[in-house]
């Protein structure tokens, strides 16, 4: 359904162009869930926003984003708008700022339905009520304003809005980050159920590998604007091949695992600045197993198992360290 080929995004800055996304490719089938993990500044949100050309005009995007075979990067605005309305929806983090504070949530859910489905107000209200119930908000609260809901409920409403026009694909950018553990679990469960029932494809972006592992079949780990490892979620976390994935996985310990008891694990150093990237592996400066080849050679995603790939030279050497 969605195929992304060699996507790059660069911003012009005073010191020349900085590439936030440096050649990302992946595919997503109907009903599949893909989790994109990475730290702040790794380009994951930029990548997601560029899929629907939601970036500011200063960003330069190259590559291809094929949705049902049609390149969204070169599509005309009218066509793109149609896709944004009814085929792909986006759920942002921070539901409070994404909802209009002076309109009732019912009206806000109805708006795209009225515009897009060309149905009467009554039918739209009915559908809005259905959607609210589906995300676990009582339909009688459709007349309430955003501030009357809790953070978790607002995020549910955002999901209801995203579902309003029966999309084929949902792009969710940190949908649960600001929420509590318990509420976060509820929202993830809700999203999971919806995906399973309706066969919607989901791209979910998060810094939290544990959240993605719960929700997604496949994972892509991004570092410094590139996918460094991809594969089935469970395998990727249980047996990471890229040292960065390994570090991320260890940062979220499994409770009860004696190895992580009183032994927090992290990575020395800081995430790289995109502007100062040189040759070789972007992760090499923080990598404990970096050799000379890592600092000079070009990295690409090499196959590292069935349905898996990792951008680490150690994969080529054939040994999982």
């Amino acid at each position, binding site marked *: 359904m969605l195929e992304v080929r060699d996507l790059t995004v660069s911003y012009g800055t005073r010191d020349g162009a900085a590439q936030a996304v440096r050649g990302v490719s992946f595919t997503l089938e109907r009903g599949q869930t893909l989790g994109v993990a990475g730290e702040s500044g790794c380009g994951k949100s930029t990548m997601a926003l560029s899929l629907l050309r939601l970036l500011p005009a200063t960003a330069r995007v190259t590559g291809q984003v094929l949705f049902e075979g049609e390149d969204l990067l070169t599509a005309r605005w009218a066509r793109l708008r149609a896709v944004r309305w009814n085929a792909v929806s986006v759920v942002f983090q921070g539901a409070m700022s994404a909802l209009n504070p002076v309109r009732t949530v019912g009206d806000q859910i109805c708006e795209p339905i009225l515009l897009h489905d060309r149905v009467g107000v009554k039918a739209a209200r009915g559908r809005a009520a259905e959607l609210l119930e589906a995300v676990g908000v009582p339909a009688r609260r459709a007349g309430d304003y955003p501030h009357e809901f809790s953070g978790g409920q607002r995020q549910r409403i955002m999901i209801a809005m995203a579902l309003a026009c029966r999309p084929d694909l949902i792009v969710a950018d940190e949908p649960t980050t600001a929420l509590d553990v318990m509420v976060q679990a*509820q929202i993830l469960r809700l999203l999971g159920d919806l995906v399973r029932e309706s066969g919607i494809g989901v791209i979910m972006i998060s810094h939290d590998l544990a959240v993605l592992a719960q929700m997604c079949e496949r994972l892509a780990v991004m570092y410094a604007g590139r996918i460094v490892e991809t594969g089935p979620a469970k395998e990727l976390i249980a047996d990471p091949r890229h040292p960065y994935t390994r570090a991320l996985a260890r940062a979220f310990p499994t409770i009860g695992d004696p190895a992580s008891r009183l032994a927090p694990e992290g990575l020395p150093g800081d995430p790289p600045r995109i502007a100062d990237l040189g040759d070789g592996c972007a992760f090499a400066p923080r990598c404990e197993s970096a050799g000379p080849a890592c600092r000079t050679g070009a990295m690409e995603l090499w196959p590292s198992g069935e349905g898996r790939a990792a951008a680490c030279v150690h994969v080529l050497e054939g040994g999982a360290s």
Partner: protein
Amino acid sequence: MTPVLEARGLEIAFGRARAVDGVDIEVRQGEIVALVGESGCGKSSLARALVGLVRPTRGEVRYRGAPLDYRRLKEYRRHVQLILQDPGGALNPRQTVRAAVAEGPRLHGLKDDRVTSALARAGLRPPEDYLGRYPHELSGGQQQRVVIAGALALEPSVIVADEPVASLDASVRGEILKLILGLRDELGMSALVVTHDLGLAWNIADRVAVMYLGRIVESGTVEEVLIRPRHPYTRAMLAAASGTATPLQGEPPDPARIPAGCRFHPRCPSRTDECGTIDPPVLAGVACHLTPLEEIS
């Protein structure tokens, strides 16, 4: 042995809301205690009361057995320090690293040769490279190290850390936790770490206290509480963290309307009729009247 820091019968009310509603907690010498709960459970208010930022409505805070004297707060601050969640906001944007770390020693009339050693202690090496920098020139992890160095410069015996890694990147998180663990192992410092993350408790804490709606509902060693949880709320949190079971329904409740009986009963999956009438006391580290008596004894 007298605990280094403790709260006895602590109650904090803001208007009608009882954010903290009768809490006993203690941190012993060289011990890391994790205080775990959802947002709005009162854990941050409790942390602020322990460092003397909020005066409790009832109950008291004790340092090495002596009740906290609010007229001599400044002296107390030498011993008990706070680390905040958002290091970017916790640093004055117009102060250099040197000024930020020297703040404590300056206020207490101590020599500022503590600045470089505190920075090095907090993992910013060589310290000289950081002295002249402003917060916005540092990464999140480095900012948090500056905040920690600022606390260390006073050589406190207890650190209260409110969500110290919640706003940091995953790969940096572990490094900051290592640092806190190292302070305990090498300097014998005690710490109370407030968090919503049970994994963090597993990573660094010796004991854990689970807080729900202003009260501690379960406490014990990390192994006891996280591997053999006895309170239904602890079980629910563990399940939510691992994604294995259906999460609790409903929203975190409102401290202005604490339910009668057991405060957890409206959301409790295993409630009985009695739960609506009996407010269970904390017995042997758990506040649930369903916990079998034989388990308690």
